[in-house]
């Protein structure tokens, strides 16, 4: 099963390699990983999407906790969260396709951030389902390149 794990770590040199080394060394997989500073500049947050059976997830959570610069590990699976991912997509935009791109951008509340003669670059933010749907709709028009941030998530309410 897929899990989204939020990890607060000391914002120091080498933490990312400790975390990624833990995953690769123990054969756990990482689907996506996002890292950035939090409100406290000494603390960073990693949002990791991974998958495995209950026993593997339990090991992942425990192993993360065992790392010394790791301050807190929260499994967001089953928690009510808002999660978002951003994609940048370069898509063909010539002839009839142009109108279709504009229509999709409007429907998905995306934005065109760069324009070239036969190609638009679009920025889109949303939950996983929306991102996938958007990409699927664009595909027939000819996607040239996709860059995704991977998921970030925050719990709802207080």
């Amino acid at each position, binding site marked *: 099963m897929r899990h989204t794990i939020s990890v607060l*770590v*000391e914002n120091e*040199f*080498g933490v990312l*390699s*400790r975390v990624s*080394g833990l995953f690769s*060394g123990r054969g756990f997989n990482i689907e996506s990983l996002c890292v950035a500073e939090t409100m406290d500049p000494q603390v960073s947050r990693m949002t990791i999407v991974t998958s495995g059976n209950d*026993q593997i997830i*339990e*090991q992942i959570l*425990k*192993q993360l*906790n*065992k*790392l*010394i*610069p*790791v*301050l807190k590990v929260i499994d967001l699976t089953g928690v009510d969260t808002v999660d978002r991912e951003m994609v940048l997509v370069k898509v063909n935009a010539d002839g009839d396709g142009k109108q279709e791109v504009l229509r999709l951008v409007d429907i998905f509340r995306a934005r065109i951030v760069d324009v070239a003669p036969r190609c638009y670059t679009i920025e889109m933010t949303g939950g996983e389902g929306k991102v996938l749907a958007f990409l699927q709709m664009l595909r027939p028009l000819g996607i040239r390149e996709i860059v995704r941030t991977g998921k970030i998530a925050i719990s709802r309410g207080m």
Partner: protein
Amino acid sequence: MQMTGAEIFVKALADLGVDVVFGYPGGATIHIYDALFKNVKVRHMLCRHEQGAVHMADGYARASGRTGVCLVTSGPGATNTVTGLATAYMDSIPIVVFTGQVPTLLIGNDAFQEADIVGISRPCTKHNYLVKETKDLARIIKEAFYIASTGRPGPVLVDMPKDMLAASARYDLPKEVSLRGYRPTYEGHPRQVESAVRLLLSRERPVVYAGGGVILSNASGELAEFSRALSLPVTTTLMGMGAFPGSDPLSLGMLGMHGTYAANMAISNSDVILAAGARFDDRVTGKISEFAPHAKIIHVDIDPTSIQKNVRVDIPIVGDVKDVLRQMIKLVKGKKEATAYRGKTAAWRGQIASWVKTHPLTYKPSKGKIKPQYVVEQIHKLTKGKAIVTTEVGQNQMWAAQFYNYEQPRTFLSSGGLGTMGYGLPAAIGAQVAMPGRLVVDIAGDGSIQMNIQELATAVQYRVPVKVVILNNGTLGMVRQWQELFFDGNYSQTCLPRIPDFVKLAEAYGAKGFRATKPEEVPEVLRKGFAADGPVLIDVITDPGEMVYPMVPAGAGLTEMLLV
């Protein structure tokens, strides 16, 4: 007070009570060597290979319980420590390894003698550091010792760029360590402890399975007290040898691949297991799906990752074995339930006693050939069971575990987790340095001893009177044993046709050499060798065909033992 990084290093070690550093110099650490030259508090012992230095620090730590310290240079000096680090990591041994590093500005440049030892050692250390400012050095050293020796102990590496050692800063060694991401749990959760005792008392066929954690947390006294209060049979892992007195009637000896028949039968037929400071290693459990099929499992471990890793545990207790056993003792000591329980479990102990009786550890003596088990028995007899024994890896290690009855913790030092050939001699030297009054014996194999034989020079130079007994079977015996049993006796690359002449080699190093070639010579040669001053190497020519039994073939269940 302003000091150079090198001076800070030496002063911090002295202030932390470090009495000895095992090391080897080089360009990146030359400032430290200069500072050491001027300091009398911290003694430095010059090993002959950095791997040896780490195993010495490790042997020192296992024998004494104090953190072992090692100092090496950058590049090859640092990479030579990797096997030692991995050995200590697998067995949870508190050591701190300091490595020199190329100057900060050259890091990443493929500079002369540069190795990314922080990257290389990450998976085989509990934690590691790169010093980025001289002013941080004292704090990092303090933290390194704290992390190495608390919680589940383990090796910590501190990488020190050369410019950090040359530059100056104020000496500021913190009194306390506070790491917000590291807070080990010592006390067991009271409700879990109560449930565990209740579960134990509700069953009829209990076994205690004790591992190295009991020794690391100095909990042997508590283990004995608790087990005796409830008359619980106790089996130990290889790492747990000595955690419970081998001569106690409740002792079943070692379990697992080369464990005793009684221990493996007891575990397999038990209805409740109290695992204390042990981690259900594959060499212990055999085929995991057939492990202890009828048992409920209580698992006490300070490391939460050990729990539920290999087997399903019914009652997990995260905590220090010593604290948790104390909590358990309080719940049963002097209670009438304890008396009733001992009565209820008497039949089970009777069953175990019959397994002990029908299948003791044994071997077939032979005329003319020296049996290695006999040699170990003779070492036991001669040392009255009071030596500190280190081992190499292979058959020698298993016979040393099986045929020397360990009564005390910290008397059996062996590379259990990693199985590092070449561990025994340097570990013996480290143990002897920590425990100058004790007799320290390395029970060695002819293959393994050659992996760190150079440390004989260290022993001779510092007059460290370790006694090495080589069970010289002329083969890489344990590998040969597998070839014999599972590969049609194709002895591929496992013959070591008695090269070199170990007696001459010992003499070349300035140690004393002895040899026994016939069974009747063994007691006298051992006696002479152990009585001789200084480091001694005793070459015992043993039966090359001898095998270690019982043996659970890899992948088989624990009850499928091959017997003598």
